[in-house]
């Protein structure tokens, strides 16, 4: 068991290192010359050379990478070209809203998704099942920005139930979280449904029923506990999916998280910020997957014993 | 005995490494035997005996860790890839599971023709004729060639596998448990087919099985393996009528006999087959042997011929006095 934990942590560490290298490479091969951007139009060749030396851009690749890594280790993600502030500070200031959104979104996804999945599995084959599955399908096929705009239009613009974006109160959180929650629940409901169907097929369910257990007990205590196993691993992946969509949702709803930061940076082609957000997201994904992998043996005794 | 036997296996050993070197598994340990053309050798053993590995070593599907396999005066390990590939025309394998050894996406015709395609035998038009006649000779119905393996029963699929094996006119066929996956009533059909083909095509068989009753039916010589080592070797008659090794005796006693007067008490072996990673010291069989002596726990017995019949070899301390070194 300990071996497994060490292996997984080691694996994640290597991936993090790899991520940093790729991020660095992307920065390195930029055609846009950051030096000119910082120096301005009328800089003399001397000034440019000076800035280049200052930024360490005249050194060989590996030396620059080492410099980059050591900066990273100290939490320095570089400087925004245009805002002249440290990227790390910018990201830090916006991390909390994104985390709030992520946790609420995943909570709602699980709430809707698991309920729908269990319900669909119990009513298998009937219309309820089919409609839930089609709805999940549509959820999975729709791009987030379109649903976000739709939700905003209906509930904020037309119905005035919620404010049109912004941050600060619970009311502001509802629409973006619900959008993500409903869209993301599609994945969970499908997996939960097929997982429940698999479990319900098993002999131990038949045994529980034969012993006279109530249907509710059978479903929630026996079936659910076993069916939920694949879901745990999915949560780790979900963090990744969330990070992927965070730019879009935050910008549509005006949610001041790192996604919106990236959106603004995209408009201005402020590469360090974009890279910083990408890096932070990748780190979040690796950590998310690691946690999912570490929790799974506790939830699934079969995996624990196999280790 | 021939000075140049048809097939000569000499002190072949195969060690597998698991866990990047941490576990060494000696699947086959110093096996030697000679086979003449037209003979059938039955290799008998249970799980972990190494019989399947030995079968693959004989055909050079696996490289021996040490020792040599000489077929038709050629040392198989010394052949180049190209030479080996050409040699494969003469030595074929029939696998145990007729369900998984045939590619489900190929038609029966394609499957039987595949060896011809691989070795570019005959022209493309002539191949079809040969496929048809081979299919007929193994007893497949005429319209089989366009159908898929899953449409056939186990016994018929094994016939397809046999057709694939004989179509290149091989001299040696290694059959790895060819009837173990089949229903008992079908087993004898397939065995009889194999015997008939052997007669017609002058084949040499190596027949691997855990089932002594099947081997009794078909083998000229029998080799009994236990945990990678040969414990007894002899002719069919000798092994069944004059078994020496306690393990051989136990296996034979377990063979169902129809005539109630032939039935003897079953010898029940103690314990389970140990894992190949932790073989008992001394004679590997000692923990389960009811005749084990102190020496058996310490010293590995050598494979020695018994005095009354030099073709009959045993690896057991009980018979050391009776035997002489080869």
């Amino acid at each position: 068991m300990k071996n497994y934990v060490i292996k997984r942590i080691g694996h994640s560490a290597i991936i993090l290192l790899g991520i940093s290298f790729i991020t660095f490479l992307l920065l390195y091969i930029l055609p846009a010359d950051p030096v000119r951007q910082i120096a301005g139009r009328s800089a003399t060749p001397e000034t440019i050379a000076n800035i280049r030396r200052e930024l360490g851009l005249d050194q060989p690749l590996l030396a620059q990478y080492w410099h980059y890594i050591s900066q990273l280790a100290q939490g320095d993600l570089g400087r925004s070209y245009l805002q002249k502030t440290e990227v790390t500070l910018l990201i830090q200031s916006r991390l909390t809203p994104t985390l709030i959104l992520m946790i609420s979104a995943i909570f709602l996804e699980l709430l809707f998704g698991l309920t729908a999945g269990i319900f669909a599995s119990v009513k298998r084959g009937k219309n309820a099942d089919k409609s839930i599955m089609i709805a999940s399908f549509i959820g999975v096929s729709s791009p987030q920005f379109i649903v976000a705009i739709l939700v905003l239009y209906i509930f904020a613009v037309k119905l005035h139930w919620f404010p049109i974006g912004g941050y600060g109160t619970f009311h502001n959180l509802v629409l973006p979280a619900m959008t993500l929650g409903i869209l993301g629940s599609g994945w969970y409901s499908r997996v939960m449904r097929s997982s429940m169907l698999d479990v319900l097929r098993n002999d131990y369910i038949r045994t529980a029923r034969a012993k006279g257990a109530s249907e509710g007990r059978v479903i929630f205590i026996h079936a659910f506990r076993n069916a939920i196993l694949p879901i745990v691993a999915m949560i780790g992946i979900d963090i990744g999916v969330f990070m992927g969509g965070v730019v879009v949702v935050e910008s549509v709803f005006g949610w001041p998280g790192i996604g919106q930061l990236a959106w603004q940076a995209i408009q201005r082609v402020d590469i360090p910020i974009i890279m910083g957000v990408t890096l932070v997201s990748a780190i979040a994904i690796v950590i998310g997957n690691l946690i999912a992998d570490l929790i799974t043996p506790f939830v699934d005794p079969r995996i624990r014993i196999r280790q | 005995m021939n000075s140049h036997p048809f097939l000569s296996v000499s002190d072949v050993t195969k060690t597998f490494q698991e866990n990047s070197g941490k576990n060494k598994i000696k699947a086959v340990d110093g096996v030697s035997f000679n086979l003449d053309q037209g003979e059938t050798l039955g290799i008998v053993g249970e799980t972990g005996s190494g019989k399947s590995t030995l079968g693959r070593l004989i055909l050079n599907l696996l490289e021996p860790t040490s020792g040599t396999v000489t077929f038709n005066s050629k040392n198989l390990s010394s052949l180049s890839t190209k030479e080996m590939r050409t040699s494969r025309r003469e030595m074929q394998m029939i696998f145990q599971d007729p369900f998984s050894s045939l590619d489900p996406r190929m038609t029966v015709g394609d499957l039987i023709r595949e060896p011809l395609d691989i070795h570019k035998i005959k022209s493309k038009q002539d191949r079809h004729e040969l496929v048809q006649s081979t299919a007929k000779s193994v007893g497949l119905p005429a319209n089989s060639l366009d159908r898929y393996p899953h449409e056939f029963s186990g016994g018929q699929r094994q016939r397809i596998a046999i057709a694939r094996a004989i179509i290149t006119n091989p001299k040696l066929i290694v059959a790895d448990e060819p009837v173990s996956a089949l229903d008992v009533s079908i087993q004898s059909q397939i065995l009889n087919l194999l015997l008939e083909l052997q007669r017609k095509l002058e084949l040499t068989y190596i027949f691997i099985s855990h089932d002594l009753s099947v081997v009794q039916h078909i083998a000229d010589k029998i080799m009994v393996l236990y945990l990678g080592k040969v414990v007894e070797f002899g002719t069919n008659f000798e092994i069944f009528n004059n078994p020496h090794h306690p393990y051989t005796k136990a296996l034979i006693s377990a063979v169902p006999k129809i005539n109630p007067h032939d039935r003897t008490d079953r010898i029940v072996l103690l314990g389970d087959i140990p894992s190949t990673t932790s073989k008992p010291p001394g004679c590997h069989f000692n923990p389960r042997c009811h005749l084990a002596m102190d020496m058996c726990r310490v010293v590995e017995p050598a494979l020695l011929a018994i005095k009354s019949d030099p073709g009959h070899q045993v690896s057991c301390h009980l018979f050391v006095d009776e035997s002489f070194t080869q």
Partner: protein
Amino acid sequence: MSTLKRLIKRKVVIFSVAIIGIIVSSAIFAPLIAPFAPETQFREGLTLEGSPLGPNSKFILGTDLLGRDLLSRLIYGARTSLLIGLLANGVAVLIGTFFGIIAGFLRGRIGSAIMRFTDLMMAFPALLLAITLSAIFSPSLFIVALVIAMVNWVQIARVVYTQTLSISEKEFIEASRSLGATNTRILRCHILPHLAPFILVWSTLGISTTVLLEATLSYLGIGVRPPTPSWGNIIFENQTYFQTAPWLVFLPGLAIVMFALSFNFLGDALRDELDPTQRGREN
């Protein structure tokens, strides 16, 4: 093929193929179907204040913020989205299959190196990676397609890897080897035919992913750049009018959703039919 017959019987497949048919025809016959050229700005296409017109007799679906006919732009947008979808997906499938087969068949150090690399790439959220790449490389239709391909090949590689691994271990592969087959022959005659259904399924599903990604990138302003119409960038351009002329956002949005949905339905149906482990499970 009985699989084809079974597929056709399903209602979702009929629905999906119909939608895909409409979209593909629009894309191919765009110059014949579209009432106007997509990039022509009409002075009469805007109100006196300069806002877009709603649906009327001349412009069936109305105009956009620059007075261009929305219907024509939607039709030509189909062309852009389809082109990018096919190109990006095609490249992704090629690269992914190539690496997946190599990793799965050769295994060993090459195999694990390739798989480690895909692990690495999967740690990056697809959209952010695409954004970064788009920001670095100057935009053009092909660059957008290439960027999407760079992001999407990884998943295909992993699926192909797992499949190749499991197929390579089957006994009929060993049987072919014992007959004397070369690796090339085994790949060509045994492994690829077994991979074909999976590649087909993932290609179909992949088009949906690529189109969604392109739409999102265009919506963010870094995908297909105007004036070339793409459903995503129509939304991008007309966002400010979304309260007064919501159809400018929702019609292209509907098109995107229908497109992705049909490919998803089709791919899912294909997967049900072609994956024997799914057979017997009423989905």
